[in-house]
């Protein structure tokens, strides 16, 4: 071992002292020959014969020197240096070629690196949690459809049941991640996203506080629960990073809380953005059967050592079956899912499919870039055939030639990768500024991190192999005899050479067509959604969220009082036209409840009818401009003392009442009020989309706020001009009613819709850019190949022209060559693109893709581009002067 090391060391140092060692060897060999000659002379040979014999006995001097070098040094490394030197020289000898190759690869790699920065940011980053893979997240599985039905939160009774009965978790905690609290530390009240968590939450995750401490046992009991932990961001922003905050009191929801800790900045669970944590107090009421309907807790649990995720799944599914038997009304059909924390966060974020589509697209773009570079290298290999032929004749092995060409390819690709990193820097910056459509997305930093660097390195090496392997293998198969003899007098040299390029370009055309259709489908789908009629008039509406805390607004009367007061004050603002409050802003996915229709037979729980349910104030339909089609709107007299009434939408009449006369019908909603009562349908309104980003319209019921007051709602104000101008007046009006009540998410309705779009829009726009890039690559590919083949065939074309072929005939001949490739490639691409709408529909749930016209327009566009790319070299071919062409060899 030591000897091995010593020898390796000597071999490496001999690399550095090569010249000196060579000189020494020269002297030694000279002495050897002298000694031999002398001995031969003594034997009586002539001087000349003595020298000749000495040299014969010695064998080749050059060979001996080579053997010596191989024995003392590291031959592999030396060859690599040689190849590199040679490659660098080749690069500089032909800068135009090098620039073309490097830029093509750089563009291809840069789009990949940019997209990969998203993969790295959203999929590869691990949560800053102790042994995150040992933390399990338990969620409910909603039997209904919808977006990610298997990440539904869990009800408190189920949390208790699972925590107490299981045998697989060493500790479990629950978190209500979706709370809002008002902070009135100093100045304006502010609504903060907050989470209420079990006292063991931070212990389960294994994350200590940055300052102070996390919650201790018993702080989730009523009476001891007025403690809070701040996020690092909130601590910086509101409390100036003052460490004396620990132990001091802040006002949250009008009550005093003691700050016990600040979490580190790195503590962030992707998709959740609480700015502070308070203890989750669960009382006896939360164990009652009635609480089973409120599913709002995520369960985070640490697996016992040696317990696999699989075992935890089996355990939980047994417990689920038990509660399904015990509480069939609420639990029927509901299941549970168990995932590791990293898995859950990525899955719940729901960005994986989008990223997969994007990575596939940029992968295709890279393949096309590689195909173009391979084409360029193949073309150049033809030009270098003579050089390679000479090198082979001089004794270079085939492996050596392949190595040489691969080294050149690697150098090109690494240069491309380097430029790509610079481009990707801008790309990542651009994407990062676009990926800010909501808090959860903006909270994820997108950077050129280590993963991206490694990715670029790996992709560059892959590119080098992809691009230069085909030319290298081809070049090494060179038959030196034909090459050295060949004076390129042959009518069409390099025929077989361009066959491989033809295949590459045909493949490029197929990919470009596939990408363009894919991008076209997505862009069209998004366009349709963006321009769909939502069923109401979003502009100019101002919206703001309000959560009435239970400290001051204990009961319905107080909630109604606040709303009355607030609405009348806002109505007095000069720029305000109409004001309303609603449980859910239109097209933001109101919740679904079960509904019974009087006179119809009772259905079993699993087949219960569902409808979306919204609570609105009197002026809602005027404010949103949702047309009332039949019957009447709500009035001030539809209050707690009057008989219960509702409005329904057209879908309700169509799907649930089967187009029977709706007015006067009685329905009962399974909403969480003490005793659900029968309500009379008094009007029918037009449909509104469930979500602004999807085309679905579900049955929907509107309940009057006066009859079913709720503590959390949104205010909507129809403005006369720009709604944002009203924001401060609305704040003032609310402050007059309650100075400690913050307004949440004050923004115009179009802004609300914009935030809901998630990544789809950004992604499809980027995809459009990639598809155009693909088209450009394909065009360059066709152009390069045809231009090259025209150049090669100058001689042949010269003969044709000399024999009387007209210029239009020549143009047609060249065009035919290009169009043949386009036709074959296009047909393949079209075949690949046929199942795309189905694939996209499956990947982006809730959206419908399919635009048959694209299957005509895109191929036509490809044909047009390829004709253009072929026509330029074809014109050049037609203008060939036969005398010059024939003279020129």
């Amino acid at each position: 071992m030591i000897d091995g090391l010593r020898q390796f060391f000597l071999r490496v140092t001999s690399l550095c002292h090569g010249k000196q060692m060579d000189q020494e060897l020269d002297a030694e060999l000279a002495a050897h020959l002298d000694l031999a000659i002398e001995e031969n002379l003594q034997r009586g040979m002539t001087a000349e014969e003595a020298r000749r014999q000495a040299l014969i006995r010695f064998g080749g001097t050059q060979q001996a020197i080579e053997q010596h070098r191989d024995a003392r040094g590291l031959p592999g490394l030396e060859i690599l240096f040689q190849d590199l030197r040679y490659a660098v020289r080749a690069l500089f000898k032909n800068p135009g070629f090098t620039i073309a190759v490097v830029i093509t690869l750089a563009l291809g790699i840069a789009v990949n690196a940019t997209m990969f920065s998203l993969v790295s940011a959203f999929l590869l980053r691990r949560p800053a949690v102790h042994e995150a893979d040992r933390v399990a997240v338990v969620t409910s599985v909603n039997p209904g459809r919808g977006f990610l039905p298997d990440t539904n939160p869990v009800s408190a009774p189920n949390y208790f049941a699972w925590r107490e009965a299981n045998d697989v978790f060493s500790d479990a905690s629950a978190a209500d991640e979706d709370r809002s609290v008002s902070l009135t530390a100093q100045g304006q009240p502010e609504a903060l996203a907050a989470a209420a968590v079990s006292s063991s939450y931070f212990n389960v995750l294994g994350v200590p506080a940055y300052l102070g401490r996390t919650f201790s046992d018993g702080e989730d009991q009523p009476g001891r629960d007025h403690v809070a932990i701040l996020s690092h961001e909130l601590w910086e922003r509101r409390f100036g990073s003052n460490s004396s905050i620990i132990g001091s009191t802040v006002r949250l929801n009008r009550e005093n809380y003691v700050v016990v800790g600040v979490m580190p900045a790195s503590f962030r669970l992707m998709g959740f953005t609480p700015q502070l944590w308070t203890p989750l107090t669960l009382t006896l009421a939360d164990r009652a059967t009635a609480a089973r309907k409120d599913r709002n807790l995520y369960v985070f649990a640490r697996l016992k050592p040696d317990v696999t995720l699989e075992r935890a799944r089996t355990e939980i599914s047994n417990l689920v079956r038990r509660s399904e038997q015990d509480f069939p009304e609420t639990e029927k059909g509901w299941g549970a899912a168990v995932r590791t924390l990293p898995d859950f966060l990525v899955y719940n974020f729901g960005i994986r499919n989008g990223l997969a589509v994007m990575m596939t697209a940029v992968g295709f773009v890279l393949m096309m870039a590689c195909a173009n570079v391979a084409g360029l290298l193949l073309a150049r290999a033809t030009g270098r055939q003579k050089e390679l032929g000479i090198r082979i004749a001089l004794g270079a092995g085939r492996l050596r030639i392949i190595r040489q060409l691969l080294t050149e390819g690697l150098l090109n690709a690494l240069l491309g990768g380097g430029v790509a990193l610079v481009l990707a820097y801008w790309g990542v910056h651009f994407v990062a500024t676009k990926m800010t459509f909501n808090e959860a997305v903006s909270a994820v930093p997108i950077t050129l991190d280590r993963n991206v660097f490694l990715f670029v390195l790996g992709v560059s090496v892959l590119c080098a192999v992809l691009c230069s392997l085909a030319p290298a293998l081809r070049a090494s198969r060179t038959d030196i005899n034909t090459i050295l003899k060949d004076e390129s007098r042959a009518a069409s040299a390099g025929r077989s050479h361009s066959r491989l390029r033809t295949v590459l370009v045909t493949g490029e055309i197929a990919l470009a067509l596939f990408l363009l259709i894919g991008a076209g489908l997505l862009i069209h789908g998004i366009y349709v959604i963006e321009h769909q009629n939502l069923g109401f008039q979003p502009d100019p509406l101002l919206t703001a969220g309000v959560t009435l805390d239970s400290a001051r607004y204990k009961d319905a009367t107080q909630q109604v009082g606040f709303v009355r007061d607030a609405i009348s004050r806002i109505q007095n603002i000069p720029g305000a036209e109409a004001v309303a409050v609603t449980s859910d802003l239109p097209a933001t996915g109101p919740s679904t409840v079960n509904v019974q229709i009087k006179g119809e037979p009772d259905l079993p729980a699993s087949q219960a009818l569902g409808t979306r349910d919204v609570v609105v104030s009197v002026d809602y339909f005027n404010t949103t401009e949702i047309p009332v089609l039949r019957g009447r709107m709500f009035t001030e007299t539809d209050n707690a003392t009057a008989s219960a009434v509702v409005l329904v939408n057209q879908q309700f009449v169509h799907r649930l009442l089967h187009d029977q006369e709706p007015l006067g019908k009685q329905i009962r909603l399974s909403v969480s009020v003490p005793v659900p009562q029968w309500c009379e349908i008094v009007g029918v309104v037009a449909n509104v989309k469930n979500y602004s980003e999807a085309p679905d319209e579900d049955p929907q019921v509107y309940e009057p706020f006066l009859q079913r007051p709720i503590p959390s709602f949104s205010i909507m104000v129809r403005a006369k001009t720009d709604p944002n101008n009203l924001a401060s007046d609305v704040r003032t009006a609310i402050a007059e009613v309650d100075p400690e009540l913050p307004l949440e998410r004050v923004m115009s309705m179009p802004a609300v819709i914009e935030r809901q779009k998630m990544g789809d829009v950004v992604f499809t726009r980027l995809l459009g850019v990639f598809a155009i890039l693909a088209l450009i690559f394909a065009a360059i590919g066709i152009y390069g190949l045809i231009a090259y083949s025209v150049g090669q065939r100058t001689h042949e074309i010269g003969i044709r022209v000399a024999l009387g072929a007209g210029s239009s005939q020549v143009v047609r001949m060249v065009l035919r060559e290009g169009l043949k490739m386009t036709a074959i490639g296009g047909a393949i691409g079209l075949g690949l693109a046929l199942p795309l709408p189905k694939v996209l529909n499956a990947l982006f749930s809730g959206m419908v893709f399919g635009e048959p016209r694209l299957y005509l327009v895109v191929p036509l566009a490809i044909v047009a581009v390829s004709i253009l790319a072929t026509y330029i070299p074809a014109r050049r071919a037609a203008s060939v002067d036969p005398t010059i062409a024939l003279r020129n060899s």
Partner: protein
Amino acid sequence: MNASKLDLLQGTLDLMVLQTLNAMGALHGYGIARRIEHVSGDKVFLNQGTIYASLVRLQQRGWISSEWGVSSNNRKAKFYSITKRGRKQLSEDAVNWQRLSSVMSRVLAMQGEGGDQ
């Protein structure tokens, strides 16, 4: 190539060089080559030049050392001599080689007897 001469097996040259130096003391490259040719009765096919690769290899392994000196007829030449570790290596290799060659001759002898049946 002269068919009547023996082609050197891989690794045998190194052993020959070691043994030569062990027996003769310090020698220059030419001397070693001549010595081997002489001892083998000119039966070994040796390009004298190949000996220098063997010498540098042995030197890097620390089995021989070298220094410049003056030959008997007053020529400057590099003289090689075996080191202590070289001797140790030589005795190990010699034993191995002898065992191998005795096994080989026995195996070949067996083939000769069995071939007739």
